[in-house]
């Protein structure tokens, strides 16, 4: 394994590419359950924020932040055309018919903030403490598994032989459409 600090900086782009791909999947209404080979239905929506960054070459960066529940993403698509990447995105993820999760994920670290899982029954009773922890743990495991599975599917596609002729072209067409 590479030195962790070196690997963190060197492969930041992979996380940002992944978040940009997620936006593409959402916009093109791709079937996530099929991509992830999940039996349960998985849907993603862009939530209330998206951050893009564009390296301007001379060590300076352009940062575009779009916030708001019904915010238009036109500035974001313009930024993509200029070569920017999604570096942070707020997502709503629905697993099955009822489970809804909301969270913000960062491309470089995969840090998750503001994560709201489906509600669990809370109680002050000590006997039920273990139950609450296990229920919450189940939900946290579930959403992180979705993120990891989707990311690893992206990586598989990214190193596949037909990446340049298939997915890459589709994303490119979407960005420049």
């Amino acid at each position: 394994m590479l030195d962790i600090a070196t690997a963190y900086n060197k492969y930041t782009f992979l996380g940002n590419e992944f978040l940009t791909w997620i936006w593409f999947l959402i916009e093109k209404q791709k079937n996530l359950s099929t991509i992830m080979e999940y039996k349960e239905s998985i849907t993603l929506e862009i939530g209330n924020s998206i951050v893009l960054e564009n390296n301007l070459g001379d060590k300076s960066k352009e940062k575009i932040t779009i916030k708001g529940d019904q915010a238009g993403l036109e500035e974001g698509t313009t930024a993509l055309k200029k070569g920017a990447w999604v570096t942070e995105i707020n997502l709503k993820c629905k697993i099955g018919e009822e489970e809804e999760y909301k969270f913000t994920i960062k491309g470089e670290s995969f840090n998750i903030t503001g994560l709201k899982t489906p509600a669990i029954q809370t109680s002050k009773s000590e006997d039920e403490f273990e139950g609450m922890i296990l229920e919450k743990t189940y939900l946290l495991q579930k959403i992180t598994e979705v993120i990891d599975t989707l990311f690893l599917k992206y990586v598989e596609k990214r190193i596949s032989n037909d990446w340049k002729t298939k997915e890459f072209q589709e994303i490119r067409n979407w960005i420049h459409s």
Partner: protein
Amino acid sequence: MGLISSTHSMSRYHIEGKFETAVMDEVRNGLIKNSIPKLENVYEEISAGWTPCESPYNPDFEKFSFIFGNYFSFSLRIDKKSIPAKLIQKHMALEIEKKKEESGRDFISKNEKTEIKEKITDILMYKIPSIPSIYDVLWNYEEGSLFLFTTQKAANEFFETIFLKSFDLKPIRLFPYTIVETKSKLSADQKENVLSLSPLKY
């Protein structure tokens, strides 16, 4: 608490290695040996250690459980004393005035100022109470995965140091590269292909 609260911020780890002896005992011993002291050391700027997640201010692992089903859950508590810069500034000004009066001089040398600052910092450090911060940990030992309920860099660094010291197992932060290394089913050749990737241009 972080784990039971309605909103979470978290970073994730892969835990490298396994215990050679009884798992529960190793974890219990590691937690007890590195639990946060019950009584605050008034001279320490930062003090950090484990505490049960049910009882953040009473680090008693005999009384409170850290085993929940197949998971270990406990909290990292970091007690930090933080002296506001303006408070140091105020006491410095008062002390400098006093020194000038006592010595009959109208100036104070650089060395004297440094000495005064050190003395004031020591006194304030002793007087000021520490502020506790609590971060929950959820560890799936069998799967070698762990959630730390914070994304603060300093807390992550404390966690990594104390975890390694407590259990002699290395926590590896999960981010794009380490997810590929630890969670993917890719072959060695495929992993090499990932390593040789460079940023795309659409």
